[in-house]
C-alpha cells in the first residue's frame, strides 16, 4: 500500500494551521450562523408553530435543534466545495509541477486533498456541536455516554463521506479551470441551489413537486437525514411536522452519499489523469 497521499495531506494541514486568519474564520463562521441566524429564526419559528398541537407521544424539538444539523451540513458543504481550490492555486503558481513530475500517482493528490478536507470538516462539525450545545441546541438529549459516542461517530461517518464527495468534485473543477475568478463563480453557483433545495433550514414536505425531486437527489438532504437521526433520534416533530427516520431510510441515505462519493472520485481521477501542467 502506497501512502503517498499522506504527503499531500501533511502539506495541506501545515497550511491549514499556519494561516491563522483562515483557521479562525473557518471555525468562527459556523458559530456565527448558529448564534445569529439560528437564534433569530428559532424565536420566530417557535412562535409561529406554537399554535400547532404537538403530535402525541412524539418528542417535539425546538427550531435551533432542528437547524443545528443543517448548520453542520452547510458548513461541511462550503468547506468541501472550497477545499479543492488549493489545487488551482498550486497549478497557477507552478507548485503542482513539482508534484506532477514526481512518481506520486495523481490519484494520491486527490486523496490527500480529500483527506485534509475531511479533517477540516470534522473539526468544524465538532466545534459546531459543542457551541450549539452551549447556546441551547438539544442534541443527544437523554443519551447515555455510550449512545452519544456512537451518535457522534455516526455523524462523523456521514460528514466524512459527504465531504469527500464534494472535495473530489471541487478538485475536479479546480484542476480543469484556469482562473480563480471563474472557479469562485462556479462554486457559488453550485452552493446556493444545493443549500436551498435541502432540508437544512426547513422541512421539504411543503415544497412544490419539482423542488421535492431536487431535494431528494440532493446529497445535502441525505447528509442532514443522517445527522438528525444520530443527533436527535429516529422519531421527533419539529416546525409542526413529524419526522420518522427508520434505519432503512438512513442506510439508503448513506448508500446514496457513498455512491455520490465514489462517482466523484472517478470523475476526479479522470480529470487529474488528463490534466497537463507545464
Amino acid at each position: 500500500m502506497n501512502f503517498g497521499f499522506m504527503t499531500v495531506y501533511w502539506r495541506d494541514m501545515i497550511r491549514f494551521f499556519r494561516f491563522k486568519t483562515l483557521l479562525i474564520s473557518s471555525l468562527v463562521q459556523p458559530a456565527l450562523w448558529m448564534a445569529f441566524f439560528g437564534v433569530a429564526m428559532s424565536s420566530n419559528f417557535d412562535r409561529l408553530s406554537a399554535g400547532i398541537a404537538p403530535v402525541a407521544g412524539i418528542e417535539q424539538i425546538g427550531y435551533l435543534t432542528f437547524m443545528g444539523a443543517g448548520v453542520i451540513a452547510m458548513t461541511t458543504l462550503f468547506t468541501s466545495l472550497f477545499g479543492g481550490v488549493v489545487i488551482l492555486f498550486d497549478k497557477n503558481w507552478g507548485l503542482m509541477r513539482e508534484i506532477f513530475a514526481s512518481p506520486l500517482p495523481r490519484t494520491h493528490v486527490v486523496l490527500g486533498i480529500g483527506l485534509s478536507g475531511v479533517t477540516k470538516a470534522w473539526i468544524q462539525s465538532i466545534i459546531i456541536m459543542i457551541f450549539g450545545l452551549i447556546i441551547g441546541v438539544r442534541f443527544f438529549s437523554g443519551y447515555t455516554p455510550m449512545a452519544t459516542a456512537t451518535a457522534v461517530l455516526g455523524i462523523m461517518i456521514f460528514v466524512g463521506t459527504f465531504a469527500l464527495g464534494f472535495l473530489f468534485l471541487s478538485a475536479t473543477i479546480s484542476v480543469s479551470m484556469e482562473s480563480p475568478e471563474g472557479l469562485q463563480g462556479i462554486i457559488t453557483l453550485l452552493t446556493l441551489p444545493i443549500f436551498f433545495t435541502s432540508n437544512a433550514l426547513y422541512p421539504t414536505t411543503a415544497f412544490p413537486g419539482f423542488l421535492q425531486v431536487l431535494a431528494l437527489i440532493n446529497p445535502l438532504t441525505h447528509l442532514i437525514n443522517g445527522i438528525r437521526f444520530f443527533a436527535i433520534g429516529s422519531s421527533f416533530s419539529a416546525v409542526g411536522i413529524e419526522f420518522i427516520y427508520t434505519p432503512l431510510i438512513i442506510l439508503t441515505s448513506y448508500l446514496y452519499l457513498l455512491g455520490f462519493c465514489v462517482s466523484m472520485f472517478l470523475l476526479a481521477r479522470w480529470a487529474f489523469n488528463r490534466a497537463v501542467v507545464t
Partner: protein
Amino acid sequence: MSDPIIEVRGLSHAYGDVLAVDNISFSVNRGEIFAFLGPNGAGKSTVINVLITLLSIQNGEVSIAGHDVRTSPEMVRRSIGIVFQEVTLDRDMTVWEILEFHGRLYNLPREERRARIEELLELVELDEKRDSRTKELSGGMKRRLEIARGLMTRPQVLFLDEPTIGLDPQTRIRMWEYLRAVNRAGTTIFLTTHYMDEADHLSDRISIIDHGSIVVTDTPITLKNGLGEDIMYLETSDIVRTEELLRNLGYVRDVRKKRKGVVFTVTEDGTRLLPQIMDDIRGQGIAVTAVNLKKPSMDDVFVHYTGRELRDERPQKWGAGRGRSR
C-alpha cells in the same frame, strides 16, 4: 568517451498546428554539463518538459538513464532532479519543510530523507534559514533551495530550465559555482538558457536551438574557434578599398562592411597579425582611423549560426492567471 545518459532521437512536438520542436536529436554524456542555448520561444522549455515527463511525448525517442520516457516515465522520474524556470516554492512553507515534502513525494525513507536534508542545507548554505518561510528568502536563496530540492533524490541527471533568470550578476556567478560543484560530485546537468555567457562559462557542450531545431552542437571553445581566431574592426579613410584589400589576404575571413568600417575574422592570432594588416592598408595610401580586436564570444557564434542577434527578451509568456508572486 561516449556514455550517453540522455539520448534523444527525432523528437518533435506540436501544440495544435504549431510545431514547437522539429525533429531534434542529441545526446548528453554522463558527467557533462550540457546547455540548450536559444531565444525565448525557441522550443527549449518544450524539450525539457518532454524529457522530465510533464508533457507526454508525441514523436521520437527519448531515453534517460536507460529508461524510455514513453514506456517507463516512472523510472525516468526517479532518475532525475528538476529546477523549474519560475520559482515553484510554497511561500508559506519553511525551507526544511520544502525539502521534507519533496523527499516524501519520492518516498525516501525517513532516516535517509533527514540526513539528506542536512547535507543539502549545508551544500547550498541555507542551514541558518531552515525554519524561515520561503517568502522571506532572497531570489538567490530561493534558487539555491530549489537546486537543493532537485538534488534530494540523488538524481543521475539534474534538469534546470533557465537557472539564473532574474538573478543579479553576482548571484548568477555564485549559482554557476554551485552547479559546477554539483557536477563535480557526479551529477550530469542539462540546462536551458538564453544567456550567452551562461552557456559559455558553465557548459561542456552547447546546442544552439532556434525555431524548434538544433542549429549546431559543440563545445564552447570549438564553436568560438570555428568562427576564426579573432574578430577585428577597422575604420579607414576608404572602406571600399580596404574591404577589397582584406579579401585578398589568405588569413582573413567573413569580411562584412559596416556603416563606418569593416568587420572581419582572422584564422590566426590577431594580436600578431594586426600590425601587418595596418601596414598593408597604410601602404595603399589609406589612413586607419580606428581599430578594435576581440576574441569571438558566444554572441558572435550565435549570430554566425542563426544569422541574427539573440532576440531580445520578451516578457515571459505567463499563462492566464499565472503570476510569479501571489
